[in-house]
C-alpha cells in the first residue's frame, strides 16, 4: 500500500505520516501542493491519496478534479484532510468524487475510521 500525503505544511504532513505509520502504512511519500503531487501520482503507482484543500499553487480541490478526469488515475481513492469547513465546499468535494472528508483539527481515531471505511468500500 503506497500512499501520497499532500499538504503545504510540513508539520501536518509529518503528523499524518506518523498516524498512518501507527495504522501500519509505512510506505508514504509527501508533496507540498497539487503541482508537485500530480507528476508523482502519474509515475508513482500510488494506492491512496491524502490531501489538504487550501494550498498555494494547485489546491487540493483542483487536484481532486484533475485526478478524477485522468483516465489512469480516476479510480484512486482520495481522502481530504482539511480545515475547509463550509458546507458548500464539502458538497462540492463529494460531487467531485472525494472518498472521504476529515476536518481539522482531527483525532487519530477519526482518521483511522475514515481510512478503514474507504478500504472497506473498495474491497
Amino acid at each position: 500500500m503506497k500512499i501520497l500525503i499532500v499538504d503545504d505544511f510540513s508539520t501536518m504532513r509529518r503528523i499524518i505520516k506518523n498516524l498512518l505509520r501507527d495504522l501500519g502504512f509505512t510506505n508514504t511519500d509527501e508533496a507540498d501542493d497539487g503541482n508537485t503531487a500530480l507528476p508523482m501520482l502519474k509515475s508513482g503507482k500510488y494506492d491512496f491519496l491524502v490531501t489538504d484543500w487550501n494550498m498555494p499553487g494547485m489546491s487540493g480541490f483542483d487536484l481532486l478534479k484533475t485526478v478524477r478526469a485522468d483516465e489512469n488515475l480516476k479510480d484512486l481513492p482520495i481522502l481530504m484532510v482539511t480545515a475547509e469547513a463550509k458546507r458548500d465546499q464539502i458538497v462540492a468535494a463529494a460531487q467531485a468524487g472525494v472518498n472521504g472528508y476529515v476536518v481539522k483539527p482531527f483525532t487519530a481515531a477519526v482518521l483511522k475510521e475514515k481510512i478503514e471505511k474507504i478500504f472497506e468500500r473498495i474491497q
Partner: protein
Amino acid sequence: MSRMSDNKKIRRDLEPEVTEKLRHQAAELTQCVESGDYAGAMNLINELNEVRDQSLYREVGRLTRTLHEAIRNFQIDPRSPEQKEVLSLMTDASDRLAYVVQMTSQAANRTMDLVEESMPVAHTVRDNATSLRQEWQRLGRREMQPAEFRELYGRIDAFFQSVSKDADRVYNNLSEILLAQDFQDLTGQVIQRVTALVKEVEEQMLSLVVMASHVDQLTGTVHRLEHEEVSAEQGVGPQMKTEEREDVVSGQNDVDDLLSSLGF
C-alpha cells in the same frame, strides 16, 4: 500608543472653523454675485477650494502620522540580546507573523522529534516485558531448567536496568516537550500586538472613509461598488465561530451527517 486614543473619536462633521469659514464665505460670495463683482466672486471660489483642500490635507496628514506612529510603536519585548537583534530587524507586521509561523513550526518539529524518539523506547519496554512475562509464567508452572532460570535471572536484571534508563529518557523527552511549548508566550505577544495594530489601522481607515465621504459630498461623487463573489474553490482556511453559523460545519460529526445526507 497613548496618542492614538486622542484620535479614536471619529468626527462625523468637518471641523467647526471650516464650516464657519464656509458659511461666512458663502454669504460673501452671494453678495459679490448680487453686486456684480465677478472677479471677487472667483477669488472667493478659489479660497473656498483652498479651505476644502487644506482640511483634506490636514486629515490625511493626521492619519499618516498616527499610522506611522502605530507602526513604530509596534514591537515585542525582547527577552535576550540575541533576540533583540533579530527583533530589531523586524519592522512590519508580516515579518512578525512570519516569525510566529517559524516559532510554531520549530516547536511542532521539536515536539515531534522527541515523540518519535520516545515511541520506540516505549515499544521496546513493552516487547521486553511481554517476553519476560512469558518466561516468568513458565517458571511459575515449574517448566524451567536451572540453567534456563539463571539465564532468565540475568535478563530480568538487565531489564530492570534498562527500564530505569528508558524511563529517564522518556521523562527527559517529556520535559523537553513541555519546554518546547514556550513559543506560545512569544507568539501570543506578537499576535496581540498585530491585533492591536490591525484594530488601530481599522479605526484610522474608518475615519478616512468618513472623511472621504465628506469630500464625496462636496464634489458630488457617487461611487458604484461592484460586489465580487469570492470563490471557495481555492480554499478559504479555518472558519471562526462555527457554532453560530449555518453555512459551516462545526466538526467531524457535522461533516459525516452532511455526507450521509448526500448518500455517502
